[in-house]
């Protein structure tokens, strides 16, 4: 139902987005992103958290103004919030003090649609989306799935040309999400919704493959379009279909390949500014050990396919990738082409007892995590062997945003504590070398 000759509804050209850093300079969130959306298309923006895909969605809707570049929607350049687009939110964003019906009428009311027409359209949308009988309920009385249906009804009732969806199913449990996806795809296929195209943000690879005609895979820091993938599998699609599995595998490959490259970049340089500011995901030692044990155990015996292990552990790619990347950073594992393989040190870690594990972890952290090595060195150099949190925070802020700086320090504290490299006193906000005796 779509072709390259369908009218262009949306076009974004070399969009950039950057935020000022605490220590001067900018943190680039989006870099030179091009995007187009034709009538009849479902396009997914797929990427890890921090890849700027949600920011892009908000730029397209006019909620955020890009630092540079331009967006044209329905033939009009975007300036402020645009007409003809409506958004479905990850958190539903329903007003708890309005009933289901009032929530659906919300957008129409703001537009000043006459009351009878408003009621008529709202009831039609409620009917279409399967909310009959819930009209007078308040959001807190109904389940998450029903709430998101309200979110859908509220968006389509204004008859938008473009429906924007920001991870619409990620706050729902697996079963509910599947039901809503199926219902949505059915309505879309039958052309019953008063919308012309869909732009969706997701971090769930299977969801993207299931729903989209095209997938733009984003890389992180800064956000860029790493790859554009056309999905030609006919609808309705089955997850068990070999071509479906092959495509999921391919996307896993694209996403790990990129991150592997990035990790090498940061490891190449020594303890430079970029090194200590390298983004450290908040991953706990238990998660690291858990993933290594899963990969080490049968049937994988040290080498596993990432999609397979994600399914086994019931994890989203978005949850799995950070853990796998930290393992790679610490030289406990290697990532390549959608596979994870334990190194010799990784195998030794799995076989070791608690204290030996901690020693291994400490060794690897000091060798491969610049921020941890840096904190340790500063503490060693000081006669008191103490240093305040703020000392490192200010140093990091020269290289990154305050938020990232805090996140990195929190991660360093967690790993430092586990490896007994240094301790941290939350009351005094300071690092030190001694542990309470």
């Amino acid at each position, binding site marked *: 139902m779509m072709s390259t000759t369908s009218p262009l509804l949306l076009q974004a050209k070399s969009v950039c987005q950057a935020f000022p850093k605490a220590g001067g300079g900018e943190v680039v969130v989006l870099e030179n992103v091009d995007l187009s959306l034709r009538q009849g298309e479902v396009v997914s923006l797929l990427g890890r958290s921090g890849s700027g895909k949600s920011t892009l969605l908000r730029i397209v809707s006019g909620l955020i103004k890009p630092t540079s570049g331009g967006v044209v929607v329905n033939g009009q350049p975007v300036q402020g919030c645009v007409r003809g687009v409506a958004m479905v939110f990850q958190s539903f964003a329903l007003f708890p*003090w309005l009933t289901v019906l009032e929530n659906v009428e919300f*957008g129409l*009311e*703001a537009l000043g649609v006459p009351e009878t027409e408003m009621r008529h359209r709202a009831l039609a949308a409620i009917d279409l989306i399967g909310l009959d009988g819930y009209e007078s309920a308040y959001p807190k009385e109904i389940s998450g799935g029903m709430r998101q249906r309200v979110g859908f009804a509220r968006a389509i009732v204004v008859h938008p040309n473009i429906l924007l969806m920001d991870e619409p199913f990620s706050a729902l449990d697996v079963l509910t999400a599947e039901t809503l996806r199926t219902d949505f795809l059915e309505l879309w296929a039958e052309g019953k919704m008063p919308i012309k195209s869909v732009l969706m943000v997701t971090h769930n690879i299977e969801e993207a493959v299931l729903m989209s005609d095209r997938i733009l895979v984003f890389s992180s820091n800064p956000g860029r379009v790493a790859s554009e993938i056309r999905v030609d599998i006919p609808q309705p699609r089955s997850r068990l279909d070999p071509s479906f599995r092959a495509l999921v595998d391919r996307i896993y490959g694209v996403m790990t390949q990129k991150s592997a490259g990035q990790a090498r970049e940061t490891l190449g340089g020594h303890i430079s500014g970029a090194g200590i500011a390298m983004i450290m995901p908040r991953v706990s030692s238990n998660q690291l050990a858990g993933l290594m044990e899963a990969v080490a155990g049968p049937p994988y015996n040290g080498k596993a396919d990432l999609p397979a292990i994600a399914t086994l552990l019931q994890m989203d790619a978005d949850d799995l990738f950070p853990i796998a990347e930290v393992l790679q950073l610490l030289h406990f594992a290697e990532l390549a082409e959608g596979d994870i393989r334990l190194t010799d040190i990784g195998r030794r870690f799995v076989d070791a007892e608690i204290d030996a594990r901690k020693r291994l972890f400490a060794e690897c952290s000091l060798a491969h995590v610049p921020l941890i090595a840096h904190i340790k060195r500063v503490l060693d150099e000081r006669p008191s062997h103490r240093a305040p949190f703020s000392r490192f925070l200010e140093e990091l802020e020269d290289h990154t945003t305050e938020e990232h700086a805090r996140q990195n320090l929190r991660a360093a504290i967690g790993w430092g504590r586990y490896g007994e490299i240094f301790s941290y006193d939350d009351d005094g906000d300071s690092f030190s070398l001694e542990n309470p005796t």
Partner: protein
Amino acid sequence: MRGPLVVSTRLSRVTPNRWDVVAVPLVLGVLAVIAVGAHQVAAPLEVLQKTPVSLDVGNLPDYALRTTLRMLAALAASLFFTLVYGALAAKSRRAELILIPILDVLQSVPILGFISFTIVMFIRMFPGSTLGPESAAVFAIFTSQAWNMAFSFYQSLRTIPKDLDEACRGFHLSAWQRFWRLEVPFAMPGLIWNMMMSMSGGWFFVVASEAISVGDQTYTLPGIGSYVALAIADKDLGAVGWAVLAMLVVIVAYDQLLFRPLVAWAEKFRFEQTAAQIAPKSWVLDLLQRSRFIELALSPAGSLIRQARRFRLPAPKLPAMPVQRWLSPALTDWLWYAGVAAIGLYGAWRLFDFIRASLGFSDLVQALELGLITLVRVLILIALASAIWVPVGVWIGLRPKIAQWAQPIAQFLAAFPANLLFPVAVVVIVRFDLNTDIWLSPLMILGTQWYILFNVIAGATAFPNDLKEVAANFDMRGWKWWTRVILPGIFPYYITGAITASGGSWNASIVTEIVAWGSTTLRAHGLGAYIAQATTAGDYPRIMLGIAVMSGFVILLNRGFWRRLYVLSERRLRLD
């Protein structure tokens, strides 16, 4: 249960302290200017018709009504002020920098101290009409209610969830629609809770502000407060009893008819997406919501509100200001700060000049000494009240059945204006010839100690069951149980109550350190008595000095002591 809401609106935010340097003299300076104006028009106002208040019990319902209406008027004024001031502070960064510290200072100024200025100012505004003293009384109540409400609203506006904000923008709501559709509803639960707390405090001030003597002028407004004042002058303990009864009825009626329904109704504005386990109920609200007649009667109003809500107030399209081309934002900021600082300096100078004209350094030393005495009194009383009410509150709070009926009583006692009971205390002190410096002190905390009790009850009720079970499982009891388990658990709640009690006590000192019974006057040493005496004498410089010193003490105590404890408790001891 909801205890901490009160303080979360007052103290959780650490204000930019340097702005206090401007805000304190600014607020006090404005007061000084008012005082100067008042001083100049101290000419007798014979035209003011004095309605003689009589001790006839038959008049009490009428007086009670008048008092109630005054409260309502003040509440309406506070609400209006809140919506405007809070919205302004939340939406303009530059306004915020000055408005919020001012609010913080206003909260610390002893309200009872400046009734004497405002009454003269209002009488001048409405010459020859009882509207003057009426407005002054309403204003006094307003000043006891408005600040924490405005804080609450401001805080709510600052914490509006991002997704709702985006939904509003994405669906093209105008600023006016957004205000009524998102901002006011979102702020509603906190606002109503703070209104209720304000009301509690307000009764105390309405009683104190109905009969005021400034210099040789006495203004008496018909109301429960003047009724009590007359009873005191006539040494009629029976009449005091009747007044207490009337007050009781009024407070219960207010609670049942106004606040319970409001609280129950506001429940739907709570942002948590899960339904509360125990939703507040109100029989009045049920009645109103279920009544067809009411529904019918209200429907025109409803549709009017809907129309108003839909109205797109055209946002004034300001032409791009040419000024901005040659004024960089940094320079504009700088000009703004400089302007504000200049006004602050002018205020400070006016204040200093006003006081210096008739008072010397020794007066300042005297006021500081007296302030120290009152400070010691407040601290000792808070400690004593804590020693009594924390164990009691914990005991009650851990027994849900008892807490269920004890909690409303404690809240009621907090609302009851303790000044109605002062005569009883005076009679006892006179009878037994007790030391006034010691025995007048408990009156300061008579009305405010209940805040400690009901917050501790709330804390103990909310204490997680699993932690209780762990303590029992490890057989932890006695002193260890108190220090390791329950006291840290209720600490945030206790701090909330103690802060409210401390603030209220400072204010109360103005009416408790000097108390009369007929022709007998009992006097304790302290800053409160100093201000009260200056008020009676119409000595404006001394009133100003007293208020300035007391504000200083309150701010120092809040910043140096309470806020630190509060931050500690927020950081370390929050259980949720």
